[in-house]
């Protein structure tokens, strides 16, 4: 139990009630979370100088770099705000296209067995395809894109997100509760009403899954495509600092990426899914134990899909 020595060292002079309070706080996961951050920075600050390499900058240097970037005073071509803005715009365009192409295909696959078999294997291969492949291929095909609407990054997003959109729509169509639609037919409910109250609500979790995994995969592909075939964007910026041999730039951008991912994961998606699934008694998509588990759970869904027998 590693935390017990910390307790004794910090809380010795205090009265017992305080000590007890500290002890209970130390036992909480929140303390563990803070402790892990502190230990990480301490290790970075004090252990890294002992290593035989001088290529790893100390935290102060990296944080200084990040602070300058945030303030908009950078040596690069674009600040971090502009770079992420450009990348997000590309992600949005690409994902929009993937959605427009993928949803009809997924719907058709859900309705017809023949269409399902026609596309099935390609979708499976697409799910397993590393986005690196798309980034390189679109790079040679469409060349260096200048400006915001660069061909290679956007098409990479489309290709990387498309299989996720298709497979989730397909699964969603299959999951529409048959009893409910049968009942609706029996009671002569209008088609639009069935659409509104049966089909769309039951497709919702699947659209949400496709949004989440399509965006995640698209984002990873986008960053790579920007490295190989763009002249702006977040991926290009990190490559810029890499080429300039500024480790603080690369690490600083890595931290920006992590912060961005945490922000999207914790704030945007959790809130969004809560709103989308308000009608449900329990929220399945956001598993209690942690966002990471929820992600992996759904990734399991996807990887299992990629293994041939599509069974959630």
């Amino acid at each position: 139990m590693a935390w017990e020595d910390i307790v004794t060292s910090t809380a010795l002079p205090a009265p017992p009630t305080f000590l007890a309070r500290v002890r209970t706080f130390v036992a909480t996961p929140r303390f563990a979370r803070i402790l892990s951050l502190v230990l990480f920075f301490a290790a970075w600050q004090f252990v890294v100088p002992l290593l035989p390499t001088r290529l790893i900058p100390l935290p102060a240097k990296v944080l200084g770099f990040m602070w300058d970037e945030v303030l908009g005073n950078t040596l690069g071509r674009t600040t971090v705000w502009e770079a992420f803005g450009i990348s997000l715009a590309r992600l949005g365009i690409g994902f929009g296209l993937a959605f427009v192409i993928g949803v009809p295909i997924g719907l058709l696959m859900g309705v017809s067995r023949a269409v399902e078999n026609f596309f099935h294997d390609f979708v499976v291969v697409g799910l397993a395809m590393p986005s690196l492949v798309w980034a390189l291929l679109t790079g040679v095909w469409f060349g260096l894109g200048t400006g915001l609407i660069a061909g290679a990054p956007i098409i990479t997003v489309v290709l990387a997100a498309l299989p996720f959109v298709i497979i989730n729509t397909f699964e969603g169509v299959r999951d529409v509760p048959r009893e409910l639609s049968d009942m609706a037919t029996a009671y002569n409910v209008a088609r639009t009403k069935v659409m509104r109250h049966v089909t769309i609500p039951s497709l919702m979790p699947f659209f949400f899954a496709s949004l989440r995994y399509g965006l995640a995969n698209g984002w990873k592909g986008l960053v790579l495509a920007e490295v190989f075939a763009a002249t702006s964007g977040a991926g290009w910026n990190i490559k810029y600092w890499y080429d300039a041999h500024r480790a603080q730039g690369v690490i600083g951008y890595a931290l920006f990426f992590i912060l961005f991912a945490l922000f999207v994961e914790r704030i945007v998606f959790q809130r969004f899914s809560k709103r989308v699934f308000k009608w449900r008694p329990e929220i399945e998509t956001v598993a209690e134990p942690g966002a990471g588990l929820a992600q992996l759970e759904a990734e399991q869904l996807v990887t299992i899909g990629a293994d041939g027998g599509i069974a959630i």
Partner: protein
Amino acid sequence: MSTTEAAPERLQESHLRRELRTRWIPRIAGYVGFLAVWTWASGRLVEAFLLPSPLAILKEMWEIIESGLFSVHFFATLQKIAIGYSIAFVLGTAVGIIMARRWWDGFFREWVVSILTTPGLIFALLAALIFGFSPVGPIVAIVVTSFPFVTVNVAEGVKALPKDLFDMARAFRIGEVRRLRHVVIPFLAPYLFTALRYGFSVAWKIATLTELFGSSTGIGFMMRREFQLFNITAMLAWIFFFFAFALLLEKVLLQRGIKRFFRWRQESVVT
């Protein structure tokens, strides 16, 4: 008389025909259509050097195999994956076991989530920057990126361990070792195998990615080289190798191993 006898036969035949119509014909049509469009487009719709025909790529792949380049780079990548992923699996399992406790979950969770959601490119670049062209870089990148996948699955499994079986084992005074052998390990095995598969699918991707930036051997390095030489035929050939390699390891070796391991079960949990 004859009609009643022929009926099941006809039924079976129509079933076969339907199977053919809904499954095999569309599937084959998909492949044939894809290859036909590809072959047709190469040289007509797009310049042949931009989109080489499937045959040209196959020829190139054969030449790469014959020249011996393939085995050199294939084994270079495989070696990095083997070392890196073994470390990641052991580390990930250990962290996963302690992460089943809430305190340790708090300790590690933030890092696990961060790594899961960060593009692999970042770790590849960092590894290349810090370790240069040594093989240590890719290995470190593989360990860092694939261990959270193992961890999360193992933690899930440990959390779900059947308490009642433990209680029963205690009631019947069953020793620690036997409990481990007959309760813990059989229960955790499917989780461990799921962890193995996910972690692996990440590991091979990150391995090639790090080779793009900080390596002078491996499939990823060759892809990068052909990309820079603008030799699309060879690039595609290496991409296909990369894919074949992953399919071979993931589908054939891992899946078969898992099936064999779970032979004693009625139904496989993992797949």
